[in-house]
């Protein structure tokens, strides 16, 4: 590539606008900045929560106060002032507390329309039910009545606390206890909204369930909490999407997702994460600090995590699986793309406890600009996990010579019958490939998108159709011109 050509391209990509960076002008009830027990009580009060949940929050908060932020990630983390964040922002404040459906501000409907997530059921994508969460509150959940007929519960977690307290109490914190880590403790203390899914025994959920997370209000953090329980012989495919406005401050998104998979049940969880990544100088952007874990409790249960991570200034996220049930199978498919000054430290943990358990890890990192992209993964095989198998493949693709790709694989195998395989490659897009595309009339930027999508194909193929197209476009847009 000629030097000046390269520079123009780098310029072009830096100037590329983040498509979802707009803000919604809506009256939002934001509590004062700062974090203490009173704030925790206030959040719980605003949500009209029962005593046990307030206790859970307070225990988590007290424990969190004893912890320090983890520093082991390959990340240059900006200092977070936890007293300078508002922990609750309710854009539905006009409607009655508790977020009753129906009386939704048209501005909110417009926002989700603009994001391509129509909340009118007649306009909605067929075959997909959506829970739309803005800031701390679920705005609307579609198709709930239809799902209810099959016994499927799909609603915001706040509502689940009120309507299905026994289920929530049974499972909340059972996969990710509040003592798990710093951000998990924080989330457990102040979590706001997210989705709750319960699929009863033997039911195959007939549509994709999805939650769309949107940060809107300034100076706030978002503390998503999602809980999915898939009972014996049941099946669900769940999707999650995320965007945020462009701001020059860092915004915190500290989430917990817990999944419980019972006997012969199967859960597919897909994420397309496109939080605002910050500007080309690395200013602003969402800090995406997430604990996601699934517990494969039942025999022959199955869980797959598929993630396409293109956004956020910092991503710290390890969707993990605890394979307790004999014969259970877990998969982790990941594409993490970083550009400009983005940093990602992401991967998975596969904890094999049951016999004949099997896990697969396919990770594709793509680094451009001055970004840093790390895969971090743990494969652990317990003493009793006879016949456990793991296959891991971690590929890194570099665009340019100022970015970094890192791989930190950990293995801890305590059972002699286990078979654990790990493969890793690092490559660059070759000039020959780009020129070949150019000669066929494909401009450079499209060529990069095409080649990167080809590189990530094994993972993109795992996404549900509607999401795959979206993810492909996203990879193209996030990388346009990032050649060097």
């Amino acid at each position, binding site marked *: 590539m000629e030097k000046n050509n390269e520079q123009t391209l780098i310029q072009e990509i830096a100037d590329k606008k983040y498509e979802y960076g707009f803000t919604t002008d809506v009256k939002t009830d934001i509590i004062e900045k700062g974090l203490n027990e009173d704030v925790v009580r206030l959040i719980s009060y605003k949500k009209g929560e029962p005593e046990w949940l307030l206790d859970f929050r307070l225990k988590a908060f007290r424990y969190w106060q004893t912890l320090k932020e983890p520093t082991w990630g390959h990340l240059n983390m900006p200092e977070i002032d936890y007293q300078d964040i508002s922990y609750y922002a309710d854009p539905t404040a006009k409607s009655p507390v508790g977020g009753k459906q129906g009386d939704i501000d048209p501005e909110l409907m417009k926002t989700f329309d603009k994001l391509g997530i129509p909340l009118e059921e007649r306009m909605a994508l067929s075959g997909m039910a959506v829970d739309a969460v803005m800031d701390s509150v679920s705005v609307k959940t579609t198709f709930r009545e239809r799902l209810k007929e099959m016994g499927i519960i799909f609603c915001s977690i706040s509502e689940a606390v009120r309507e299905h307290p026994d289920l929530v109490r049974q499972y909340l914190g059972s996969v990710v206890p509040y003592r798990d880590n710093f951000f998990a403790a924080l989330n457990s203390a102040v979590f706001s909204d997210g989705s709750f899914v319960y699929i009863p025994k033997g039911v195959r959920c007939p549509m994709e369930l999805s939650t769309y997370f949107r940060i809107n209000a300034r100076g706030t953090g978002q503390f998503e909490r999602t809980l999915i329980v898939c009972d014996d012989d049941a099946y669900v495919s769940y999707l999650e999407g995320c965007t945020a406005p462009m701001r020059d401050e860092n915004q915190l998104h500290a989430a917990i997702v817990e999944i419980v998979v019972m006997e012969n049940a199967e859960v597919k969880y897909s994420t397309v994460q496109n939080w605002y990544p910050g500007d080309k100088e690395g200013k602003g952007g969402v800090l995406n600090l997430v604990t996601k874990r699934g517990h494969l409790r039942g025999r022959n249960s199955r869980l797959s995590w598929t993630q396409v991570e293109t956004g956020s200034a910092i991503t710290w996220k390890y969707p993990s699986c605890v394979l307790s049930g004999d014969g259970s199978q877990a998969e982790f498919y990941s594409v993490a793309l970083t550009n400009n000054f983005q940093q990602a430290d992401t991967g998975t943990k596969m904890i094999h406890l049951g016999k004949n358990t099997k896990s697969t890890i396919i990770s594709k990192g793509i680094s451009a600009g001055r970004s840093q992209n790390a895969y971090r993964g743990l494969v652990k095989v317990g003493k009793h996990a006879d016949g456990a198998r793991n296959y891991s493949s971690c590929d890194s693709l570099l665009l340019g010579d100022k970015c970094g790709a890192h791989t930190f694989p950990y293995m801890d195998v305590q059972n002699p019958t286990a078979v654990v395989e790990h493969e890793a490659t690092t490559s660059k897009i070759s000039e020959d490939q780009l020129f*070949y*595309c150019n*000669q066929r009339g494909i401009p450079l930027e499209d060529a990069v998108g095409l080649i990167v999508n080809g590189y990530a*194909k094994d993972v993109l193929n795992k996404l549900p159709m509607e999401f795959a197209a979206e993810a492909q476009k996203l990879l193209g847009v996030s990388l346009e011109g990032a050649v060097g």
Partner: protein
Amino acid sequence: MLEIRDLHASINGKEILKGINLTVNDGEVHALMGQNGAGKSTLSNIIVGHPAYEVTQGSIMFNGQDLLAMAPEERAHAGIFLSFQQPVEIPGVSMNNFMRAALNAKRKAQGLEPIPATEFLKLMRERRRIVELDSKLANRSVNEGFSGGEKKRNEIFQMAMLEPTFTILDETDSGLDVDALRIVAEGFNKLRKPETSALVITHYQRLLDYLKPDIIHVLINGQIVHTGGPEVATMIENEGFDQFVKES
């Protein structure tokens, strides 16, 4: 159609082409013959705008446009196609996606809407038959796992899809067995139209027997030292390039 005037070019500071003059009119097939290192591939790379080569002097006009001022993809949109000597593999990118991207990029440049999916698939089906590629082609990654012969057939297939007005075959015959050579050459001939032209680069007469070029040029040490009719290929086949070395 194509007019090259006093073209000098170098790679990594080393001068390879030393004043090339070449005119290809509508409907003509020209052959360019010469030994390894004579500059044949350099010339084809410069026509398609490979960034590794630097033009130090001279001009190339293509249908009245200054070709050297155009980006590689613009040259492609204008109707120039190169059948690569060593087609590169692009893992994970299906021929379907690749061809659609290429075709739609060209249509966009022409102010046309993207090609409808059904029409595209029909075109893929039709055109792959020209070079006897089977239905698996559409979902195979670009050139990945293709045999040498398949790669060259795939090049001609792409030519059939993109319908260029000026095609360069850069040693398309190298590494081909007799059957593959026949398929490639007959495929190319089927695609010829009265208004399309081509430049065929080769060492051997074999391919030219099929393609029947109108004019043959001999390139030695960066210069065209001899131009003639089909008889030139026979002269080279019989007596090699040395006769022209002396001539120059």
